């Protein structure tokens, strides 16, 4: 499809929960702004019932760049499964002819976007950290030890997943005037049913916590295997609570069963870039660094002065975390 070279139209695949748009979905909107000055952004939501329609209303005013909200309301989307979502993206793309399709690079986007790209016969570019124009992107390779700049030379749509830590969402001013973008329901009568129904959602096991979300917290406190037990890991949790921080963990700590998998920070876990990252008993393996080396300030506490973590830390303390953490708990100011 030939298009005016500077005009773009972007479809953002968004997630919602409890009637609200998930914060990380907005990073995809911010990324859309880097693609072109002249870009109309449509936000696609899927689900069923009143919480979907409520989310749609919120989506209409969630960001000044969103010019349209598309809603796919059906039982098939009660849970965001890849098979119906990929067909939905194919349907919406075929009707809308977008130049770009973007999702945030979390488990939703990573699961769905490549499948949709295959249906549309295009190569997606995943885990983008920088956009240099409509068709040139930078993405990390080799656990972030190298950056690859790629140019997309295929036909529309150009499909991307973007790292939310690379496209932070500026606070939207409370009096952002908008009546809101128009909301329209996607006509699902021609949705291709093949492959839908072959997968069924059973359950989600997650930790109930009031701590801030790891992916977007301002401060993250991470523990490694040196904590030695799930019981000891509670020290990390106490410190996090004192700082109003999220809790992170290394692969080793998760493998050992100290904490659940969703706390893993690293190449194949969560990517975080908080203002302050504190790592206790973390050696600093390449794969862990991949998940946190873009943090603004890194603090490392480890008994081993040669631990690789000290090469990325701004402030290091060579010492026993079982002494340092209690001392920190005692001396840190209460969070405001």
């Amino acid at each position, binding site marked *: 499809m030939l298009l005016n070279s500077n005009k773009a139209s972007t479809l953002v695949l968004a997630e919602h929960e409890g009637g609200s748009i998930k914060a990380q979905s907005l990073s995809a909107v911010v990324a859309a702004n880097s693609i072109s000055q002249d870009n109309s952004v449509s936000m696609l939501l899927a689900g069923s019932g009143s919480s979907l329609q409520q989310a749609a209303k919120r989506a209409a005013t969630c960001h000044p760049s969103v010019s349209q909200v598309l809603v796919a309301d059906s039982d098939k989307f009660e849970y965001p499964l890849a098979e119906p979502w990929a067909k939905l993206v194919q349907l919406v793309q075929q009707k809308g002819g977008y130049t770009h399709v973007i999702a945030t690079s979390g488990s939703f986007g990573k699961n769905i976007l490549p499948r949709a790209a295959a249906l549309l016969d295009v190569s997606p570019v995943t885990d983008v950290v920088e956009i240099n124009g409509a068709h040139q992107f930078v993405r990390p390779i080799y656990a972030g030890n190298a950056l*690859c700049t790629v140019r997309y030379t295929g036909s529309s749509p150009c499909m991307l997943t973007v790292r939310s830590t690379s496209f932070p969402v500026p606070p939207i001013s409370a009096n952002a005037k908008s009546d809101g973008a128009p909301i329209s329901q996607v006509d699902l009568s021609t949705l291709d049913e093949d492959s839908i129904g072959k997968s069924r959602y059973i359950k989600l096991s997650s930790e109930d916590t009031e701590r801030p979300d790891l992916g977007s917290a301002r401060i993250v406190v991470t523990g490694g295997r040196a904590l030695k037990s799930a019981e000891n890991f509670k020290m990390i949790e106490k410190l996090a609570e004192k700082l109003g921080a999220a809790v992170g963990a290394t692969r080793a700590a998760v493998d050992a069963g100290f904490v659940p998998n969703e706390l893993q920070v690293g190449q194949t876990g969560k990517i975080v870039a908080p203002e302050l990252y504190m790592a206790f008993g973390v050696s600093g393996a390449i794969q862990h660094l991949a998940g946190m080396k873009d943090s603004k300030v890194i603090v490392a506490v480890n008994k081993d002065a040669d631990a690789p973590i000290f090469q990325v830390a701004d402030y290091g303390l060579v010492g026993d975390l079982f002494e340092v953490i209690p001392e920190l708990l005692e001396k840190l100011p209460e969070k405001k």
Partner: protein
Amino acid sequence: MKIMVAVKRVVDYAVKIRVKPDKSGVETQNVKMSMNPFCEIALEEALKIKEAGLAKEVVAVTMGPANCVDTLRTGLAMGADRGIHVEAASELVPLTVAKLLKRLVEVENPGLLILGKQAIDDDCNQTGQMIAGLLGWPQGTFASKVVLDKEKQMATVDREVDGGLETLCLDLPAVITTDLRLNQPRYATLPNIMKAKSKPIKKYTPQELNVEIKSDLEVVQVTEPPKRKAGVILSSVDELIDKLKSEAHVI
């Protein structure tokens, strides 16, 4: 049931990679290469399923230049029954790999296709999802547990997702991509390495499979990430708190 496992030859995970001075890519000459760790996990899972009596045969597939056969031999040594090598001189993008895999699936008719969730060189995390889309098969990505029900022809898959652990039920045939905690891959024993030398490897070319090698992605350059400036080692918790407050202004 037959299980097909796709495996990739990559720079070993412990190697400290270097970017070539001409920025054309990462240095891979004279560098230790291994089977992608996630692919090892994929193969291990297939072998466990076969050992539990739920599958008859495990076929390992790899794509790329002649040296990829090393990886296939490792897979055969771990216990795969047969190997398939799709010979291709150049780098293949995931879409092309998916198209080639689709043709192989049409030839071999496996009940399960297992891949690693991502290759640790390009970190794409796309191929499994793409082949599932092309085949119209359900997908269980980032799997940390797989339980097969042979009678109901279903797989119950636990997946590691942002919010925790999600459980899905997939009708077979299905595509599964493996995450770190799914299993601990076995080492190939010396007797098995010897036995592997006589296991068959079938070669295909992309032309024979009717797939055009083309790419809609062009590498412009490969660079090093910005380096962090060196930090300091402090001598007390008091000093740390002070620095965080007065110098870094983060608390």
